[in-house]
């Protein structure tokens, strides 16, 4: 890849797919970790656990240790996840009611929650539930998860389809939570939030820090080395 590509072209052509972002996030989940994956795109993380590691997945509607979707036609609609998709059970599963489920969340018993984002600010605020004040608002369990899990990560495109930054100084969309995000896996980088700053940890090898900064709505800080963000083809 030539270094003189425009940022826009780079962002379109050289970026991680959703599966690749999920793969990268999955590498940071330890064996035996208790994990909640947000509805939709973060759910892909479960597929990419490294060999030898087995996280225990939690769903808000009252299951620990659920597994893959059943084959079509074999769905049990009393065995669903928070996205209302049919799932299966793994050995060692448990059922519980919603108050116990959110005791797990709010009480700090989950090791990791991984959510999608509309915007993340440099102090760790997350906006991911509502674009504006129109339409029907719906929040689900996101506001509980961001203040519950020991670590709350985001997986997101680095910028919107229109090129607007999603990593910003201050969120303009309604907040899901204040100062709750500690790590962001984007289509282009891995960024920690520490002391109210974005700290760049990994970036795609084909782009410069300056190119990444140009796509980002707040300053990217460097602490120590920035390593290459390398993921398999998926």
């Amino acid at each position, binding site marked *: 890849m030539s270094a003189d590509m425009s940022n826009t072209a780079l962002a379109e052509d050289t970026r991680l797919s959703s599966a690749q972002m999920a793969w990268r996030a999955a590498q940071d989940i330890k064996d035996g970790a208790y994990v909640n994956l947000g509805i939709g795109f973060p759910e892909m993380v479960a597929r990419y656990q490294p060999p030898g590691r087995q996280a225990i997945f939690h769903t808000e509607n009252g*299951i620990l240790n659920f597994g893959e979707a059943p084959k079509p036609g074999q769905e049990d*609609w009393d065995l669903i996840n928070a996205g209302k998709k049919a799932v299966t059970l793994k050995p060692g599963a448990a059922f519980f009611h*919603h108050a116990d489920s959110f005791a797990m969340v709010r009480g700090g018993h989950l090791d990791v929650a991984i959510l999608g984002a509309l915007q993340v600010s440099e102090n760790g605020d997350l906006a991911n539930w509502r674009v504006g004040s129109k339409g029907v608002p719906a929040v689900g369990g996101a506001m509980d998860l961001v203040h519950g899990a020991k670590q709350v990560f985001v997986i997101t495109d680095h910028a919107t389809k229109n090129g607007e930054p999603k990593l910003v100084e201050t969120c303009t969309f309604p907040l899901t*939570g204040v100062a709750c995000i500690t790590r962001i896996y984007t289509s282009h980088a891995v960024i920690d939030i520490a002391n109210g700053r974005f700290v760049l940890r990994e970036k795609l090898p084909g782009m410069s820090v300056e190119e990444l900064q140009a796509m980002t709505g707040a300053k990217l800080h460097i602490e120590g080395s920035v390593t290459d963000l390398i993921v398999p083809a998926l």
Partner: protein
Amino acid sequence: MDKRSVSAAEAVSAIDEGAVVMIGGFGGSGAPIELIHALIDKRPRNLTVINNNAGNGRIGIAAMIDAGMVAKMICSFPKSSDPRAFTERYLAGEIELELVPQGTLAERIRAGGAGIPAFYTPTAYGTELAEGKPVAEFDGRHYVQERWLKADFAIIKAEIGDTHGNLTYSKAARNFNPLMCMAATKTIVQVSKVVEAGGIDPEHVVTPGIFVDHVVEIPSPQQEEEMIRAGLQYEGGVYA
């Protein structure tokens, strides 16, 4: 002691206009479809309905909304694969919405059942869903004060019930059901099977009978998800 009702219609017969009604279930899982439809047949209006969602398709809670019975929804996620019933009335200003984060909704219902009038949670602090609510700092962290939720009636789906009202559930159909049993003045439960007292191992009871007033056996309950896939629509008394 025998808490059996002979029919869904009899079980819901006391629910009148203006009642606050908790309805169990998370989407279609644990949704008491037969009790809801019996309530549609009776058609009390101006209800406040508490559920995680706000109906899907043209059955269950969505059919209640279609029938003009619901004045207010208290829920966390009023969206679904087919959210037209709620969406149209909400956007037309015909139905009120109190949006509550899911864990706060669960805890407010439990608090109602447990005699806890208010509690503090970190959830929603600093967001528009906490606007107007008292906040407090404990050990250097900010929390929002939330109030209990109670209801006049809860309509619930369980799996096995005994004549004392002890209940078990089927898998993740448990969800809000055990909490709502606790938080209503009268709790009405449909079960797939009623057994005599002693028919449920005391170790396996999920909802003790003290939280239950009426149990009605609906041997093969309908499943919301399958009904929606089949395109069913309930209009009171009949499926269109």
